């Protein structure tokens, strides 16, 4: 029996967290939630989830961007896949900085409202890639020891 993969949802919208959390739980993921960046960071450090879903506009409209920087400063979380899920581009149309242009240290940006099928597909892909990377590292370690 394998340990269920864990997903941390950092979002101040309880409806979103409940809906997406339910979707992920029904697909076999263990789900944790936090309603702001600070709590989310603390929980991420403790639980070291396999995937993080991160909102941007929470207590402040750029909070998620700052939280993402803090997540990446934690050595154990540097390679944890993060999907930024936000409506900032529709809410702040002046902010036209392409999230895929390499400035955002996230694995993926998905606009809200999120497509459930796409979310599940990307979650499985990113978690699978992380697991493969860890397995490769273990293999290299055992060869070089």
């Amino acid at each position: 029996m394998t340990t269920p993969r864990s997903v941390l949802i950092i979002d101040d919208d309880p409806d979103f967290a409940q809906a997406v959390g339910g979707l992920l739980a029904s697909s076999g993921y263990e789900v944790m939630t936090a309603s702001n960046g600070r709590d989310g960071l603390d929980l991420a450090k403790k639980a070291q989830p396999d995937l993080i879903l991160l909102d941007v506009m929470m207590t402040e409209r750029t909070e998620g961007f700052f939280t993402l920087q803090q997540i990446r400063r934690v050595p154990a979380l540097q390679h944890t896949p993060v999907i930024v899920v936000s409506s900032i581009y529709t809410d702040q149309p002046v902010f036209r900085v392409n999230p895929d242009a390499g400035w955002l240290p996230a694995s993926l940006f998905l606009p809200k409202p999120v497509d459930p099928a796409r979310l599940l597909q990307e979650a499985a892909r990113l978690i699978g890639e992380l697991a493969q990377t860890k397995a490769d590292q273990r293999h290299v370690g055992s060869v070089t020891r």
Partner: protein
Amino acid sequence: MKILKTPKKHLDLFASVLPAFGEVYAPVRRGRGYAFDRPALWSEVHMDYPRTILPPRKLFLPPRELMFHFDPTRGYRSLLEEAATPRVLFGVHAYDIYGLNILDRVFAQGPYRDPYYMARRQNTIIIGVDVDPDEGHFARSMNADFVDKGFDLFLSDLGDHWLILVGTSRGDDIVVKSGSLFEEPSADDFDEYKRRSTSRRAAYRTQVEMGDLPEILEMEYHSQVWEELGAKCLSCGSCSMVCPTCYCFDVADEAALGSRAGSRVRTWDSCLFKTHALVAGGENFRHTRASRIKFRFYHKQRGFVAEYGRPSCVGCGRCAASCPAGIDITTVIKMIRGQADAHGDRTTPASNPAREPVPAAPGAHLVHPTAGV
């Protein structure tokens, strides 16, 4: 130079893009003061801070710096690469940028170039911002209230907008990346900038006359003022620690007992410390507090002028704000000029009783850029 503007309400969005260029450091509250640190939220950043406790120097010459490791079995391992980590220093006042420009002369342009300093300097983007001077600032007197180099972007307050001077191609890269947030300024914006620039300059209430200070220091080398200051000074070194341009450091090799492996470490030093001029054999060239505080003033206001053409003081006011004995550099300059007594009260030049003949080249050894290293 490219000039743009952005609404103030968009600054948080602009700041969100900056991590693409490096770790962002900005002025945030720390205790009763402000410090350049990494904000956890944009709301922690204060664009209207008066001055930080420590100057940006701490990010280029860290208070304690591991330089390299050595080990007989593993060899030499440099930590220079870590010094090259990209960073963005956001919200730096003009006088602090001026301070970095002065440090550049010593560590990046002089005969003894420091690779650690240069790596940090080259990999740090500087974004400046205007300051409304308070009673402690006298940067206007030091010609450090405005900078024309040393920054990548500089933000000037226009009320609802920031006017943005693009100082380098690196600054232009940032602008290009976050282009939608910027607008072309209008003629009215330029008029508003000029109006605010004039009023900001007029707002410097504390002023000191620097014109012939090196010459007056030459005349006052044996002044009783130094003894008065020495009696007051606690030699705590606070003024050096908070100074944007003090750069003395100490170097030590640290190794565990019984081990031949270790690390080379350099730490901030201060010419106010009793051991600063202590050499092998026990001789101390400046064993009195008066001689040490005099050295500090001569190095900054006279020696540096001879070596680099300007004093190394930028008028930030940190030394006066941090001195537990209440020694204020602006008062000291007035005392030396015979314009004030130790309490800052106005007096006449005749009140200095200890005028003695001036030595031919007093303290000539003080001007070397590595003095105290």
